[in-house]
């Protein structure tokens, strides 16, 4: 009886190591954050638009087409880095790109978009970060894909890289 108990430490040890090993070999990204909003309707919100004079009402806008929502700010360096990819999305057919300008100065934003090019069909102002809270934004830049029924299909935290760009393209094609 006693002798059998002595093997227990080694058995525990190998069970735990096998779990570690399994997690190492499967493809996973430990920094990927799950979103509770995934596969749910976009949050309801109203806000000003930077270039248009009418109010932006979410319930009227998110339908009929696939929309990429991108939270950005001029003071955020990674936002500048991912800007080329946002521009590529705006050239893609069948998708609308909306920018949400997070805690920023509107004059600076207009200048920033003039210099770098404006890929957004609409830029919404989120002066005090309220909209970001509704969307559960973790940190900017952050990007969401909303399908034509107004349901969030994908969320990415951090700047868009080449890999993420390809991944988002796949998701857009799937939802078309």
């Amino acid at each position, binding site marked *: 009886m*006693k002798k059998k108990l002595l093997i227990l*430490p*080694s058995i525990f040890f190998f069970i*735990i*190591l096998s*779990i*570690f090993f399994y*997690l190492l070999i499967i493809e996973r990204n430990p920094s990927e954050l*799950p979103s509770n909003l995934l596969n749910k309707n976009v949050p309801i919100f109203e806000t000003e638009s930077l270039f248009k004079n009418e109010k932006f009402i979410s319930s009227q806008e998110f339908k009929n087409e696939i929309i990429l929502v991108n939270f950005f700010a001029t003071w955020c360096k990674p936002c500048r880095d991912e800007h080329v990819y946002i521009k590529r999305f705006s050239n893609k057919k069948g998708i609308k790109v909306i920018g949400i300008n997070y805690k920023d100065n509107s004059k600076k934003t207009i200048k920033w978009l003039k210099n770098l090019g404006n890929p957004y069909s609409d830029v919404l102002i989120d002066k005090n970060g309220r909209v970001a809270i509704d969307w559960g934004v973790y940190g900017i830049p952050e990007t969401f894909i909303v399908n034509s029924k107004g349901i969030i299909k994908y969320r990415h935290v951090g700047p868009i890289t080449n890999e993420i760009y390809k991944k988002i393209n796949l998701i857009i094609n799937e939802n078309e």
Partner: protein
Amino acid sequence: MTTYLGNFLLSLSLFFAISQFFVSKKNKFKFITITVNGLLISSLLSFGLLMYSHIISDFSILNVFQNSHTTKPLFYKISGVWGNHEGSMLLWILVLTIFNYFIFKLYNKNNSIFIAKTLEIQAFITTGFILFTILTSNPFQRMFPEQANGLGFNPILQDPALAIHPPLLYIGYVGFSAAFSISVATLTLNNNEKVPWYNYMKPFVLAAWTFLTIGIALGAVWAYYELGWGGWWFWDPVENASFMPWLLGTALLHSLIIVEKRKSLQAWVLLLAILAFLLSVIGTFLVRSGILTSVHTFALDPSRGIYILAFTALLGGYSLVLFGKKSKKYFNTNYFALFSREGSILINNILMVIICATVFLGTIYPLLIEAFTNNKISVGEPYFNSTAVPIMLPAILVMGVGPILAWNREEKSKIFKKILPSVLLTGIMSGLIFSIYQSYNFIGIAGIILAFWIISNNIIILFKQKKNYSSGMLVAHLGIGLLILGITGSSIWQEEKITRLQINTSAQINKYNIIFKEINEAKGPNYVALKGNFTVYDEKKNIITKLEPENRYYPITNSFTTEASIHTNLARDLYIVLGDGNLSEGWVVKIYYNPLVIWIWIGALIIFIGGIISISNNLKKIKILS
């Protein structure tokens, strides 16, 4: 040139480590001497070479290019050597070879078989880590073409406490490797030589535990001063990875005393020694493989993870199976009374292991859930505070009583007279502190009273200068008491205020009124900063201090850090962090009132001193043995 020399030295270390393995097997003293010294010297040289390259900013080396910059202050150029994965592995190897040398120094004709076997296992461990470094984490890779300047060093790591935190921590982790080797050697040899292996193990465990303690404490100091979150411990996976070997180390250290005195619990100690080192290696695995994310995450590379995992499997598999087969011989029936010094140590032992298991479960639980259900969850502070912390309370209570009890068996009638002075002292001190802070909750009251309980017990024994007590133990226990006082005080009485302040407006926290005077730009050696200027007044409108928190921008690595500004006295810390903002809307300011924090650092330092006293006493004991 440097890259060739560095790689040559690394290969030389590998050669000596492998040779040591074989000559120790044959127990040839002359050859063991050559290999042990050769290993030490070649590792010292390769580490020195990397340090030299960092100091002179030799950007022909990839590691220097990626982690250094000419504008970096010299102190951080040096600490930058181990501030990255590859360099830290080189330091790890160096510490291993130093411990290897100390084990070798114990060699004499009475224990030659035992020490040779220990050196053989130590050589195996060292070989594994050198191979790992050469194959997956070579610090001497060439940078081509050579660059004029480096990428710079993560500025959040530019902190004096953090600069010396890794070496101390590694002495801790690696110290357990010596205990591991001694344990495996003891199990393999069946102790035919009749060497008191526990006497040899103890100074290594003491050293490992002492340095691990101060290493963890410095990590907490860094988190407190640099991260700007107002706290010093976050139950981050990597903090847990250092805390778990510490808990087992504590259990190991105390059980060794019982083995020394009573020859009981030998099998248990052998197992603890194995587990403490395995947990240290698994800790490294968690940090370096990227399997968990944490503030400590180094470069993510799965191939490294697989290597460390395979190596851990080899070490753990061999030692634990060996334990399963051979430990029977070390079981004995020297039972002892529960109500005695050794009984109290045993109870504490069990509690330490339970806490360790609780922390372990909390740390790997998200991984278990992910592996089996594909869901992601996170386990944080609430879990640990409600599971691990309550188990600590009885452990602290027993810790207060234990040293008063006699060995063998305590007369129950005498005990009351023995503890009366410290009960009185505890009552007075607790009454005093609750009249000042006036806040009551169960854990808080228990924590404070227990802290004073430990402090008064040890002060009284120290004061009486009783001969049969180890002074190192008393000092270390006193340090633990102060540490608990600081931890409890800063957890239960902390006040936090997050507010937006404009110039010349004020905020109130506890009895202090804090006025935001101005904000200026400042320039440092490799950063620019926004510096806030706050004046703190007490309730009588006297100026207490001026605080200047900074937001730094490091252009080279393009990163921001916050520098909290802290005013410390023995009763409390005032802690200000400057957040985002602008002139028109004001700045976000976080203010913390943290009582008794300083006692955490004082406590840790006193524990360290106690540990050092014990190490030197135990080394004397070993000298007498040989």
